[in-house]
């Protein structure tokens, strides 16, 4: 590995970043919605437990959460985490689901009560109102804040190196220690290109929903 070509090493490191990014997104997007429903529940205990959970997750560093997920199962229950990558996925999914849930909540609460009432007087059920009337309006509203959060996630994946995930920055640091500086700075290009692609994608999604106003 040490003798490897820097470009190959960075590229294979970045593939880990991408993998962590994709799995996190895939799991945190739906989990966030479940957390939203809990935090908006009319059942008070569930609502408050969820609020405390969101406070803890948003109130502590993601770096610390990575360590907790990696070590706590082994230390507390004697069941060590099966792999470092799994630990990273769990920590990222929980962390990002908490943030996403608050964006979803903001989106849902921004829809005027008149939309729900219009659905009700037309005899729609609660779930019909949510899925047929409210949801797409929420999606349109939350695309800009979600784009922001997802772009942040791209770069946050580099934090996984603190629990020994050989992602791109960690790969580059190996060369720095050997006296080779340029690989570390060129990691920026990987992130820039990827975020550039994401930005184009989000722009396209926004444009797709330009046909209506909320």
């Amino acid at each position: 590995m040490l003798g490897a070509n820097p470009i190959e090493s960075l590229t294979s490191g970045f593939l880990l970043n991408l993998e962590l990014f994709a799995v996190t997104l895939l799991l945190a997007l739906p989990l966030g919605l479940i957390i939203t429903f809990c935090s908006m529940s009319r059942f008070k205990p569930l609502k408050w437990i969820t609020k405390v959970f969101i406070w803890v997750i948003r109130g502590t560093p993601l770096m610390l959460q990575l360590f907790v997920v990696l070590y706590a199962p082994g230390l507390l229950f004697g069941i060590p985490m099966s792999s470092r990558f799994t630990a990273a996925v769990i920590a990222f999914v929980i962390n990002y689901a908490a943030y996403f849930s608050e964006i979803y909540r903001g989106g849902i609460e921004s829809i005027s009560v008149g939309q729900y009432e219009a659905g009700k007087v037309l005899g729609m059920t609660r779930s019909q109102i949510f899925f047929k009337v409210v949801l797409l309006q929420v999606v349109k509203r939350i695309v800009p804040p979600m784009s922001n959060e997802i772009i942040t996630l791209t770069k946050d994946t580099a934090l996984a190196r603190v629990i020994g995930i050989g992602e791109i920055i960690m790969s580059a640091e190996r060369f720095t220690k050997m006296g080779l500086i340029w690989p570390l700075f060129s990691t920026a290009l990987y992130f820039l290109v990827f975020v550039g692609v994401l930005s184009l994608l989000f722009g396209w999604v926004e444009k797709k929903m330009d046909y209506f106003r909320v």
Partner: protein
Amino acid sequence: MAILEVNNLKKNFGNLEVLKGIDFSLEKGESLAMIGASGSGKTTLLRCLNFLERPTSGQIRVNEKVVFDGADARTLSEAEIRKNRLHFGLVFQSFNLFPQYTVLKNCTLAKELMAKERPDFKTNKKQILDEIKTEGEAVLASVGLQEKMDYYPHQLSGGQQQRVAIARALMLQPDILCFDEPTSALDPELTGEVLKVIRGLADKKTTMVIVTHEMQFARDVSDKVLFLDKGMVAEYGSPEQVFEHPKEERTRQFLERYFEQ
């Protein structure tokens, strides 16, 4: 036979008594104009009729069938409330069209969703949906908007949006169509087209309850006028009675304030 009977309807919000025992009835084909100052309870009464608020006590009957009884402690299931609600249609002050759907889809959506519950929906899907679409086009034509059916709400003027909202409510053929200040959110030059549509419905003997501040319109169009004051029916009768010969001093004062303007 009265199509709608409201008996001793009360509504409290906490300690605040908004409706203090409302009684009135409406015959099929009649239109009732509800007038009164802001805060007199007009909108709350309309929202109680549409089950958007649960009355504290009293009774509502449609076609002699009890749809709400405050003495019945049992809470109605969501399905029962939905069923009762369909006796009524409601046109909102702020239109509340669904922005992501075309004008036509705004009208047909609820009916399409209901059709999915029909046992023959799977086998006759195309035919059922075509029928609903044809109905939607017809109802839009009746409010003069057939050529706008593929537009989205934001592409229409306020008056046109409100006409779509009326069409959307008519689509479900409610027994009683309610209007909550249908022209209050419109620029003055746009109120005419909406009032014209409502007038047309009155001519076709649509049973309606109209909350309005348009006194001239109320006088011209309605068969009965109900003047609400501080959560009570202060005056109730024909437009001539209420507007020309009010029995109550407060009715006179309210009307004077309006016609001075």
